[in-house]
């Protein structure tokens, strides 16, 4: 690109930023919605944990179990109810929602601990609300660890209590920290595809597109100038979502941040291409918005596995999910963020995503040419 073309591009991008920053509705969509979604999905789900009702079944009734139960009772997170329930009774209680978790001390707990230096505690949690289940379990584990540390300080003998954690109803904890990758896919799709398509259709509606086509601007410059601002805004949003996850929701990014951004850029480009595709067909901003919502937002919510596990869907729906770019992005983000995996674990998804993006770009270039002829 020579400097003259760069100057044209710059003038255009500057104009696009004026549009973005002057329209309150656009601003709200671009920055308000992502923040609200992260907060809604994250905070509301994970913050109501104080005073959770749990049941403690103490079959040991010895010094050790009493000591730990006292600590649990002292914690503000739990409201303890003591009862010697059978396994079936515990399940019934969990199912009815009366309790969130059950803690079971087996016979001879303290005896095992002081003679074998090793004992077990069973924890059964209701994982249908996976966020709460993990949080409660980790609170409890930290209380147990606390007890062990004190015991070590007193006796100088290292004793190990092994918590046997059992997550009922949702053993893989689908849903919990998974919402962040899901929201990322959703937000990027929203901003890139929907906002780009609206921005382009707006030019058509206003009649300014004609002027742009008559000008010496090359069509690819129009497309670049229309998409670059949203690419930048999307990356900014991505950074904001990640910062919020790390600092507000305590969800650490386990893998490479650079890889995450590179993969996100690929996904963003595919979303921008989708937005362009919609804008070529749509005649009004309303139509562009409806098309984006029906054909992009819904599949992103339903078919990526972020709200409902894909494995449980009918085969034909699973089939559709294979062409939804967000599905691959969601898997990629989960692998990088939550599992800390590297590129070798996600190259297949990356390849598919790159292929979809490539096809979309080719289709767009052809469509754009046809329209000009």
């Amino acid at each position, binding site marked *: 690109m020579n400097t003259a073309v760069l*100057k044209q591009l710059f*003038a*255009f991008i500057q104009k696009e930023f*004026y549009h973005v920053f002057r329209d309150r509705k656009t601003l709200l969509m671009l920055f308000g919605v992502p923040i609200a979604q992260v907060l809604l999905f994250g905070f509301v789900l994970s913050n109501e944990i104080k005073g959770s009702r749990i049941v403690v079944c103490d079959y040991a009734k010895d010094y050790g179990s009493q000591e730990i139960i006292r600590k649990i009772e002292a914690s503000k997170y739990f409201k303890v109810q003591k009862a010697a329930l059978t396994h079936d009774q515990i399940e019934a209680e969990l199912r009815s929602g009366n309790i969130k978790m059950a803690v079971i001390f087996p016979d001879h707990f303290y005896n095992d601990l002081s003679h074998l230096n090793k004992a077990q505690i069973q924890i059964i949690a209701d994982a249908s609300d996976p966020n709460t289940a993990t949080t409660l379990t980790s609170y409890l584990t930290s209380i147990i660890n606390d007890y062990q540390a004190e015991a070590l300080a007193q006796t100088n003998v290292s004793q190990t209590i092994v918590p046997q954690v059992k997550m009922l109803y949702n053993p893989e904890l689908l849903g919990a920290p998974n919402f962040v990758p899901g929201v990322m896919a959703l937000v990027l799709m929203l901003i890139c595809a929907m906002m780009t398509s609206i921005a382009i259709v707006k030019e058509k509606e206003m*009649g300014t597109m*004609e*002027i742009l086509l*008559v000008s*010496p601007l090359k069509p690819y410059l129009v497309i670049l100038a229309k998409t670059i601002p949203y690419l930048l805004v999307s990356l900014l949003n991505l950074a904001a979502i990640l910062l919020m996850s790390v600092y507000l929701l305590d969800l650490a990014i386990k893998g490479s941040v650079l890889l995450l951004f590179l993969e996100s850029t690929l996904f963003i480009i595919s979303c921008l291409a989708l937005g362009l595709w919609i804008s070529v067909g749509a005649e009004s901003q309303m139509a562009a918005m409806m098309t984006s919502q029906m054909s992009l937002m819904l599949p992103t919510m339903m078919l990526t596995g972020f709200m409902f596990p894909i494995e449980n869907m009918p085969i034909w729906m699973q089939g559709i999910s294979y062409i939804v770019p967000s599905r691959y992005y969601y898997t990629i983000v989960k692998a990088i963020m939550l599992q800390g995996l590297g590129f070798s674990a996600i190259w297949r998804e990356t390849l598919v995503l790159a292929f979809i993006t490539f096809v979309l770009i080719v289709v767009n270039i052809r469509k754009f040419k046809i329209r000009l002829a």
Partner: protein
Amino acid sequence: MDNIAIKADKLTKRFGDFVAVDAITFDVKQGEIFGFVGANGAGKTTAMRILCGLSVPTSGTATVAGFDVYKQAEEIKKNIGYMSQKFSLYEDLTVMENITFYAGIYGLSDKEIKDRGAELLDRLGITAEAKTFVGSLPLGWKQKLAFSVAVIHRPKIVFLDEPTGGVDPVTRRQFWDLIYEASDRGITAFVTTHYMDEAEYCGRVSVMVDGRIDAFDTPANLKKQFSVNSMNEVFYQLARGAKRKAD
């Protein structure tokens, strides 16, 4: 030949069986104000899109500013200005931002943008409104601003597609003063219009019926030829014979 701005010879555009533009032949002189009139659906817009480099003709030849419409669309685009019937400035940008944007995409330098922008504001008498959002200007001002922006890169030819739609008569008159001024500076104006009083202002007028040019001369000669007193009657006599329905 230097003083010919647009030349079309048997220019034709077909869409399948439909002949939108049927072998039209005409020429426009440099600096001339050329009226391109015709009923809706007569083929004006298609012809104009060809001349602007947006559409490739099926047959015939045409040059715009000396460039071939088949091979040199990019060169044509650099040498023309265009103003559409829809209002074509960005309402959420200020007057000066619109000027900067359009001048920028035509590749003017920063200094040129500054100088010509100031000159344009001065000529329209809206220097004080440079930082006003275009959306809050009265329609007449907007139209005049849109025209001035369309010629800010000093094109050889400016295409005006029904530029005065919805504008009151006084503003229309003022708008035509701007076209005359541009013409005096040597800019050719190619104007489509529905208003026959505006056709009277043009140097020469072509009347399109069913894709053909059925009449082509100065307004005075056309009136003489059809033995009537106004362009309105000329147009009416020609358009009555049209077979195509307006869409």
